[in-house]
């Protein structure tokens, strides 16, 4: 967050933002995570007025945490452990705090990313130096600790959401997930439904199971699902081999560098008797073979930083960690305990080839610090979970991508930057990656939009973020997917990369009410008991009404053609004017000739704010593509000033 505000254009639009979001200090962002490190400067409340009168929450006390740890910035903190303790036994307070205190770092990182105060001179060991700030630095923060050493349990998560609703948060940020069960069985989806009904936007991480298809979590349409992309910053650390070749990698190592001269390097698989010795797992390296050498380890199974610790414990002096096919060329930087760098799959293969061909291979690693202006950026992170939506294929997910790779934000004073127990270093900021990091970016931006437009529903805020997201670079080329090196698709990036300045004034929004979602549940053919369990009401679907999932007023389109099904699919949509009077014309782009798209009417005229106009989008399959294939398009409404864009994903099954 020393870079992401600028990357998102928040710095250039400062005056516009100040004027638009003057009420931001009344907005409350709730974060369900591992708790909070209240001493972080990111929770400094200098300049904050009294706590908003709407606030009903509290600052719960417990291990090493008192009510005085809250202030006008960090206005609430609670913890929920009954479910955890029932399953795993009483919390061992010598190992973790039975209180809102964050012993892990993850919760402090996500909370400060969403809404941390401005902190000058932030860095991790000098890396990513700058002024750190959350996306909504004037918003208030409320912490709900639900994740513990043994995991995050659904009973606790549900209770935390219950309390957050009582407390009157405006945005809920949840960087966690739990598989892909039906919405009526998924506690996050259930809790989010109630939150949505109270006007709370729920932003969730999409998951880190990419680049496999169907790998998304948090798929309910009342949740904003956030994937991850890179920013224009990198931390290069080159590998120089004895044959004169250089290979680029990344690292956040700070400490005694390797000597300028070349050192012997060995492949971990050749320094171990274990069948998985190449992975540098605990106790698998033979000290006599690695002592004084750089070790080449393959990525996978164990934590990246753990591999460095294993090499160090065995007497190695450095490590080159190479991606495998699962990660491709994606470079995620780590604050290793020894001089180490991560290289992409291709570089790793080249280095391994050299090691196997040279009888006395040598190498060194050169750390270059922080580089900005990296292009292209953003690119979709390989780990970011991908569509299609495995529960409701007619709803395109993820909704959007945001910065989630190598993000600097606040950290716990209880743990080192690697999170390893043997890491005795303590830092106030750390750099980590995941959709956990992209989710709070969107949460904070949603808080900004809420401040600018307090009357907007969660669906309107999400629509604004989605329809103004971008899918191509300034040079016109499509956003890339690091997993393939090719242009990414709406199954990877959803509506595209978030553009908060454009989202402030989107022109039109696709709004949704609770009734729309109830109709959606009817379209899914949920039973009365399932709807009642999810939506807390006796609701009977009208047997005379034809419910269609495709008619949910979503800001994106996913159309599935089945070989035995209809070749004409109609989706209805309603647009709400949130700008000035104007006439919007539709335009359609598609990469396939197999589907014809028409919109009726093609022009929508709005004379006043909040005026609603409907349209029907007809997709006609005039050809067929092989089963399991996908194709994509885009539908845009424009009045010449605004572009209200929606991705279209076609699939054939």
């Amino acid at each position, binding site marked *: 967050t020393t870079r992401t505000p600028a990357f998102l254009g928040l710095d250039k639009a400062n005056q516009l933002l100040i004027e638009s979001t003057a009420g931001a200090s009344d907005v409350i962002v709730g974060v369900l995570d591992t708790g909070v490190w209240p001493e972080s400067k990111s929770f400094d409340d200098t300049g904050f007025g009294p706590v908003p009168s709407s606030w009903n929450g509290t600052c719960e006390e417990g291990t090493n945490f008192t009510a005085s740890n809250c202030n006008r910035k960090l206005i609430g903190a609670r913890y929920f452990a009954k*479910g955890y303790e029932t399953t795993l036994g009483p919390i061992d307070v010598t190992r973790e705090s039975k209180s809102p205190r964050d012993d892990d770092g*993850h919760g402090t990182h996500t909370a400060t990313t969403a809404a941390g105060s401005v902190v000058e001179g932030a860095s991790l060991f000098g890396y990513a130096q700058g002024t750190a700030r959350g996306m909504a630095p004037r918003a208030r923060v409320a912490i709900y600790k639900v994740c513990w050493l043994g995991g*995050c349990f659904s009973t606790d998560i549900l209770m935390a*959401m219950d309390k957050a609703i009582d407390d009157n948060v405006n945005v809920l940020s949840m960087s966690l997930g739990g598989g892909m069960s039906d919405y009526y069985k998924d*506690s996050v989806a259930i809790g989010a439904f*109630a*939150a949505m009904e109270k006007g709370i936007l729920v932003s969730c991480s999409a998951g880190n199971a990419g680049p496999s298809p169907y790998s998304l979590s948090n798929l309910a349409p009342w949740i904003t699902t956030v994937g991850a992309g890179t920013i224009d910053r990198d931390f290069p650390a080159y590998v120089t081999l004895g044959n004169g070749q250089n290979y680029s990698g990344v690292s956040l190592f700070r400490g005694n560098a390797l000597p300028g001269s070349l050192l012997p390097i060995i492949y971990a698989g050749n320094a171990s008797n274990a069948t998985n010795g190449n992975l540098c797992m605990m106790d698998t390296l033979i000290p006599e073979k690695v002592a004084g050498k750089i070790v080449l380890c393959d990525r996978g199974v164990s934590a990246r930083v753990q591999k460095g610790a294993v090499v160090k414990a065995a007497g190695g002096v450095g490590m080159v960690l190479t991606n495998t096919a699962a990660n491709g060329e994606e470079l995620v930087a780590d604050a290793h305990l020894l001089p180490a760098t991560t290289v992409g799959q291709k570089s790793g293969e080249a280095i391994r080839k050299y090691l196997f061909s040279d009888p006395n291979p040598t190498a060194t690693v050169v750390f270059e610090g922080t580089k900005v202006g990296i292009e292209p950026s953003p690119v979709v992170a390989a780990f970011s979970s991908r569509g299609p939506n495995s529960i409701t294929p007619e709803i395109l997910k993820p909704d959007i991508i945001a910065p989630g790779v190598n993000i600097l934000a606040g950290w716990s004073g209880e743990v080192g930057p690697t999170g390893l127990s043997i890491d005795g270093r303590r830092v106030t900021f750390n750099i980590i990656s995941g959709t956990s990091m992209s989710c709070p970016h969107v949460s904070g931006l949603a808080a900004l939009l809420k401040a600018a437009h307090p009357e907007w529903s969660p669906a309107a805020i999400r629509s604004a973020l989605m329809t103004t997201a971008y899918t191509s670079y300034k040079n016109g080329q499509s956003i890339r997917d690091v997993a393939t090196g090719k242009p990414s698709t709406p199954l990877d990036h959803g509506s595209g990369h978030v553009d908060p300045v454009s989202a402030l004034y989107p022109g039109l929004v696709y709004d949704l009410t609770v009734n729309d979602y109830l109709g959606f549940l009817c379209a899914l053919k949920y039973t009365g008991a399932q709807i009642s369990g999810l939506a807390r009401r006796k609701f009977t679907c009208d047997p005379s009404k034809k419910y269609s999932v495709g008619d949910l007023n979503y800001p994106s389109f996913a159309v599935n053609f089945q070989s035995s099904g209809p070749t004409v699919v109609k989706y209805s949509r309603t647009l709400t004017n949130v700008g000035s009077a104007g006439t919007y014309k539709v335009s359609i782009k598609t990469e396939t000739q197999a589907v014809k798209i028409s919109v009726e009417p093609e022009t929508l005229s709005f004379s006043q704010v909040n005026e609603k106009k409907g349209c029907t989008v007809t997709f006609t399959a005039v050809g067929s593509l092989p089963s399991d294939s996908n194709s994509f398009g885009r539908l845009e409404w424009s009045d010449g000033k605004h572009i209200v864009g929606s991705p279209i994903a076609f699939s054939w099954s």
Partner: protein
Amino acid sequence: ETNQRKTYIVHMAKSDMPASFEHHSHWYDSSLRSVSDSAEMLYIYNNVIHGFSTSLTAEEAQSLEGQPGVLSVLPEVKYELH
């Protein structure tokens, strides 16, 4: 194994609460007592669902599912940070 307790989230149809109960928590407690003398409520939820969480044996959970006003008895799920 059949006596091993697991945690469940119990969804209740609040609209089906008999008039004889003054407060929904009493109704929840009565429903729970009908299948277990010893089970305790972990949480009573007021906003996100109508219901509560508790620890039950598989047999008790199955029995509770058949009680009037019980919509579903869903097992605890572990979520992970992303």
